[in-house]
């Protein structure tokens, strides 16, 4: 999250600059949200060992994070329970039964937690333009911040960024998503729900059950073939295909 100069002690300075002229050049300041809760919860859910969890926890200590992002402001992310409670309260009037909302929230809590973390960063941005970027989104173009900002100014854009890749066909298209996004906060001032997803609601998202089962079977078959190839130097064992099938079962997306 890049928000130019930011001041953690002055959250009241949220109003973006009203003028649309170029800002004076200055070194950008990064705001890093420490969302360790969701990562540790996911690792636990995936069956990580105590040692692996300790190692992952160590990754999130303040000192290494500061070392990885020199000069950045590290903001503690929200807790999972806090986000969960807020989403359930916010969707209470949707008409979707509580049980269904809890089920959907269990599936998409990571997305809401991510958005809540971004909110914590965005509320600290005091500049007109804010750049949101995921830690696994690598820009490989030299000088891209200046170039992108010049483009946003020249084209008078409110938002610029990466859309969902078309492989995620259930997501929205033709608009940037939060993986990488530049926001002009003069055109669209920040509000707490600005980047929140809309996933805890009634209705199912379409995916063909038959084709999903077929694709999973093909993947399992490919894994079995690969497993046999790997096992040839020693001896093929019944567990090879068993492991492949287990992996495929885990790989199969849980359809609503």
């Amino acid at each position: 999250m890049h928000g130019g100069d930011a001041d953690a002690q002055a959250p009241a300075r949220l109003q973006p600059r009203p003028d649309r002229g170029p800002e004076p050049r200055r070194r950008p300041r990064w705001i890093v949200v420490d969302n360790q809760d969701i990562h540790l919860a996911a690792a636990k859910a995936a069956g990580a060992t105590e040692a692996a969890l300790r190692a992952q926890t160590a990754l999130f200590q303040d000192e290494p994070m500061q070392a990885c992002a020199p000069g950045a402001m590290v903001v503690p992310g929200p807790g999972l329970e806090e986000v969960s409670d807020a989403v359930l309260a916010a969707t209470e009037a949707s008409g979707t039964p509580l049980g269904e909302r809890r089920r959907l929230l269990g599936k998409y809590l990571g997305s809401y937690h991510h958005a809540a973390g971004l909110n914590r960063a965005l509320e600290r941005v005091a500049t007109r333009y804010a750049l949101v970027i995921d830690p696994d989104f690598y820009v490989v173009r030299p000088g891209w911040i200046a170039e992108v900002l010049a483009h946003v100014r020249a084209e008078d854009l409110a938002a610029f960024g990466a859309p969902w890749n078309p492989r995620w066909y259930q997501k929205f298209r033709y608009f940037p998503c939060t993986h990488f996004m530049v926001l002009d906060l003069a055109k669209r001032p920040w509000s707490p729900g600005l980047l929140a997803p809309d996933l805890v609601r009634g209705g199912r998202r379409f995916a063909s059950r038959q084709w999903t089962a077929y694709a999973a079977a093909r993947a399992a078959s490919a894994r079995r073939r690969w497993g046999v190839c790997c096992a040839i130097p020693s001896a093929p064992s019944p567990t090879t295909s068993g492991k492949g099938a287990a992996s495929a079962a885990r790989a199969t997306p849980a359809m609503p």
Partner: protein
Amino acid sequence: MQAFAAEPALTSGLLTPVFSARDGYQPAAVTPLQDNPLLNAFLPDRWCYRPKRPGYISPAGFREAGLPDFRGLGWEEFLWRGAPFAVHVRGELQRGPAGGVEDDAVGRGLDAVLRRLGQPPLDPLGAAVGGGSA
């Protein structure tokens, strides 16, 4: 977020995602028939799995530009102004294997890009963070 995207007064600009049939859909529940260009030519955009807006998708990515093939790892590539712009590493625990994540693979791939650009290799502690370049 969807409400934000639907605000009619907002103008937006986009990077170009790289996508072709070999990338596959997530969830993997789209038949070849459903992704058939001939059939989709007659359907409105909202009924098509693949977005129809001209120029929205590029089938050619980093590999075609002489860079490492990140899509081969299941990751996502983005272009801007016809040139490689960014890579999104995929492989989240909760969504199944959309792609593989391996620290060495990230470093090797990005260093190859930097070499091509005549830039020094990555500093493992990310000394470039905070500057105007990646």
